[in-house]
């Protein structure tokens, strides 16, 4: 296995000597028809990460501690056993300290950390709002009913045809009552990217939504040529469990 180990997408200089995934075994039950019923454990498992060598310097402790900081939850990344892919795991990294006398000051024994894999909630996802034809101003051009409550993380967008004349296609995302962008997103006619610009997501009140609420795409302005078309707005959101 190639030596690669990252914490929060930043490579560690002092690498662990081993990484082992401990995934729960499924339970298999015999059924009356001679078949079997396989039940997969809900626990997402753990990752064992072994640092250090006999009588090695303690430097890796400081590096891991710096990368961990005061946060428990992190992403660790390492090569799989076949060495053909990078695995990313959301885990809890335990706090690490070194002793002062065994086997001698400033030295550590090889140490294995058990890092529980975390199932992430709220669950992030991306929603597409796609308006295929020529744009006109108006509210609710595209609507999405939210399957669970949640919070918007980012709003980005792309437009197929910028349109001509002066001005821009200007959009807002709302729940029908509250606007989520304090500064609306623009696709100016002279854009060099066809990407949404200037949008600023609301901070307070937080850009949240409830289960069953409709998010809608409002088109507040179009270029003077009235011929912008093919609008894609991507909403990155975190969904709660209900």
């Amino acid at each position, binding site marked *: 296995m190639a030596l690669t180990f990252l914490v929060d997408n930043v490579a560690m200089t002092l690498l662990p000597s081993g990484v082992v995934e401990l995934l729960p075994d499924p339970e298999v039950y015999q059924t009356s028809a001679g078949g079997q019923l396989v039940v997969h454990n809900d626990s997402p498992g753990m990752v064992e990460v072994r640092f250090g060598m006999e009588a090695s310097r303690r430097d890796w402790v400081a590096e891991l501690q710096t990368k961990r900081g005061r946060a428990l939850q992190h992403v660790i990344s390492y090569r799989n056993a076949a060495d053909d*892919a990078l695995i990313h795991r959301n885990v809890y990294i335990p706090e690490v300290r070194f002793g002062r006398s065994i086997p001698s000051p400033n030295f550590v024994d090889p140490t294995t950390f058990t890092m529980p894999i975390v199932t992430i909630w709220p669950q*992030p*996802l991306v929603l597409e709002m796609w308006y*295929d034809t020529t744009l006109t101003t108006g509210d609710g051009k595209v609507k999405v009913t939210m399957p669970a409550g949640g919070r918007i993380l980012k709003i980005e967008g*792309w437009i*197929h045809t910028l349109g001509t004349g002066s001005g821009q296609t200007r959009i807002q995302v709302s729940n029908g009552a509250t606007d989520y962008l304090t500064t609306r997103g623009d696709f100016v006619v002279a854009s060099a990217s066809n990407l949404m610009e200037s949008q600023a997501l609301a901070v307070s009140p937080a850009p949240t939504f409830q289960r069953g609420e409709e998010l809608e795409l409002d088109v507040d302005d179009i270029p003077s040529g009235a011929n912008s078309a*093919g609008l894609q707005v991507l909403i*990155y959101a975190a969904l709660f469990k209900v």
Partner: protein
Amino acid sequence: MIHQQFVIPLELKGTITTGDGGAGTGKPRWKAPYAGNVEGLEGWIKTLGSGAGTSTDIQLRNSTANPDRDILSTKGTFEVDSATNLLEGQVVDAANASFAAGDVIEVDVDAISTGPADATLYMAVGMFVD
């Protein structure tokens, strides 16, 4: 920080023409909100077009990287005689799959049948969300 998979739709609207993606080309562009990796690409096309033995060939390219990086080691194809209208054969090049927050990924169309139109690509990405 967490790592999370997302599926990003990329819309090839109307008649599809050959050429690299980019602003003003009508081909979709995606700006990465977080750093991450492209993990896969799937796609469906409404109109395959015509022309025996031809195909519409799709490449993904990180246009912010310097120099530009092709993300697929093997392009995806919409074969003109496809029975499914699905993208086939595409392979992600793991060495070129990473992107930084703010990078723009573009869709290049390297070949076409006669008159292909209206495809949606689904790009699977894993991102480091903070």
